[in-house]
């Protein structure tokens, strides 16, 4: 059993990097399976596919009924936002759920790089969120009047993937808060509806009161959805680079905030026994 000891002695920078990457990728994968209970079709189909599909249809028909905007407006807005099912709920559960499984103590007793440990948990949800969004778009294409040109699809996919990533970063913040304040759902539920209102999903930001516009401009998805609408109408990626840049920047801020929060809570937990570590 002294292989590990010897390995540790000759510990290169290389090996440490490899370990960190493994925590990021493999660790992310294990945590997804360990903590996220919507993997089985019984849960996945209703929450990740049916629910989002109804959301897209509901708002599109509401829009038709009130003669405000065309289907495309609602399809793009909602199809991007439904990624929050994964990006907000999923991520929040994989982070905040440590409390239910009571695995926080053994987890934090490991020397694992915390950045890789926590951010790795976001990775599977970015992929999953992208799938959920793609399904939302497919529903719009099949059942509603949403017919983007074939050529726009790759560029649309880039914008959607970016938005999903930003949304997942936001979900990490929600998960961190849930970990500290006992219940993730009491935070994740309002967070999801907050996005529905403030991110220009169904109501253009310009139609909201000034203070809501300010909040909305700091939220994930707001700029991504605006960019996706234009790209779906045939605009090129380079013509929306300002929006994409802002979305990316906001995403980075949320990732940073989540990391800082988790480190602060970990330190606080060790000092004040607040994380109920066993």
């Amino acid at each position, binding site marked *: 059993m002294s292989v590990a000891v010897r390995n540790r002695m000759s510990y290169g920078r290389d090996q440490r990097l490899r370990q960190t990457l493994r925590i990021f990728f493999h660790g992310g994968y294990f945590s997804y399976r360990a903590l996220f209970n919507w993997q089985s079709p019984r849960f996945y189909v209703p929450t990740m596919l049916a629910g989002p599909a109804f959301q897209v249809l509901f708002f599109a028909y509401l829009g038709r009924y009130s003669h405000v905007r065309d289907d495309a407006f609602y399809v793009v807005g909602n199809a991007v936002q439904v990624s929050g099912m994964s990006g907000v709920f999923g991520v929040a559960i994989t982070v905040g759920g440590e409390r239910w499984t009571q695995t926080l103590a053994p987890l934090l007793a490991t*020397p694992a790089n915390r950045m890789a440990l926590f951010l790795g948990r976001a990775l599977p949800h970015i992929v999953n969120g992208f799938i959920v969004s793609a399904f939302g778009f497919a529903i719009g294409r099949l059942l509603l009047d949403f017919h983007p040109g074939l050529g726009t699809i790759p560029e649309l996919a880039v914008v959607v993937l970016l938005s999903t990533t930003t949304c997942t970063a936001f979900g990490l913040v929600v998960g961190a808060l849930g970990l500290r304040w006992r219940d993730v759902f009491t935070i994740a539920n309002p967070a999801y509806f907050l996005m529905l209102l403030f991110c220009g999903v169904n109501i253009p930001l310009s139609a909201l009161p000034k203070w809501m516009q300010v909040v909305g401009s700091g939220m994930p998805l707001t700029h991504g959805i605006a960019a996706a609408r234009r790209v779906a109408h045939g605009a090129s990626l380079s013509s929306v680079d300002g929006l994409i840049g802002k979305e990316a920047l906001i995403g980075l801020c949320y990732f940073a905030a989540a990391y800082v929060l988790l480190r602060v809570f970990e330190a606080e937990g060790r000092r004040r026994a607040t994380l109920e570590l066993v």
Partner: protein
Amino acid sequence: MAAIEAENLRRTYKQTSGFLRRRTKTIEAVRGIDFAVDEGELFGLLGPNGAGKTTTIKMLVTLLIPTSGTARVLGSDVVDDARTVRRKIGYVFGGDRGAYERLSGLDNLRYFSELYGVPPKVQKQRIPELLELVGLTGRERERVEGYSRGMRQRLHIARGLLHDPPVIVLDEPTIGLDPVGARELRHTIAELARAGKTVLLTTHYMYEADALCDRIAVIAKGEIVATGTPAHLKSAVADRTVIEIEAYGAPEDAIRRLRDAPGVTSVAVEDREHAQLLLVQAPQGSVLTQQLLGHLDGVRVGRVTAREPTLEDAYVSLVTEN
């Protein structure tokens, strides 16, 4: 160099209650303890519930910061050098929670191998070895949610050994196990010590500490009241007699009278199904059974026997007399 050193280690908890008028209560969980565990030693921290065992362990495994004092694991400070300590120490806690229920036992071990930075090639060899050691071979692909209490406990042990740590701490590892399971677990722990590991074990079972440990520190109300080999602890009560009195419904003040009686060193009360068992310790030849019974005037008394003290009595006297 000692494998584990604690110097004047102290930890308090603050509890706030009340909404408008917030009151803060300070709980002194560990009140400045000193102990050292040598390399390769199997050391027991023995004490009743609430004595501060878990708090001590959590400080050693870096999950709690000491309020004051220091602790070192193989020379590394648990606060200043927490990450090094985490690499050197394996942490096994009692109880059946703390594994990912939805993952198989194998995947739990694979996940924690990653977190401990065990390279994949080493994992391939070590995980089957550990499964074999804790007797989970053949069941490793089942989800943990279907595991019995004993299997979960053994999985915790395997997890604590993934990174081949030189120091292992186990917090009440046999709690809630059936006698056979507990015996097997003790066997595994003894084997670890034989393989050269330093083992720190907490327990509230005297016989467990006696059977396993090279040395024991008895902890009560956050303080270490005695340290030594099991034989050494026992010699502290060697010159005593234990008088066991079976009583039916002895009131508090009768027991207090007994405790204050001249010559009596301690009285422990064990509740049995229909009766109480009063364990009276006194120096040999110092009191007569007849006198003791006089203090229990009006209480119905059953069998009365006198016997030699055991290690259990040594423990009871340490925990109750201090």
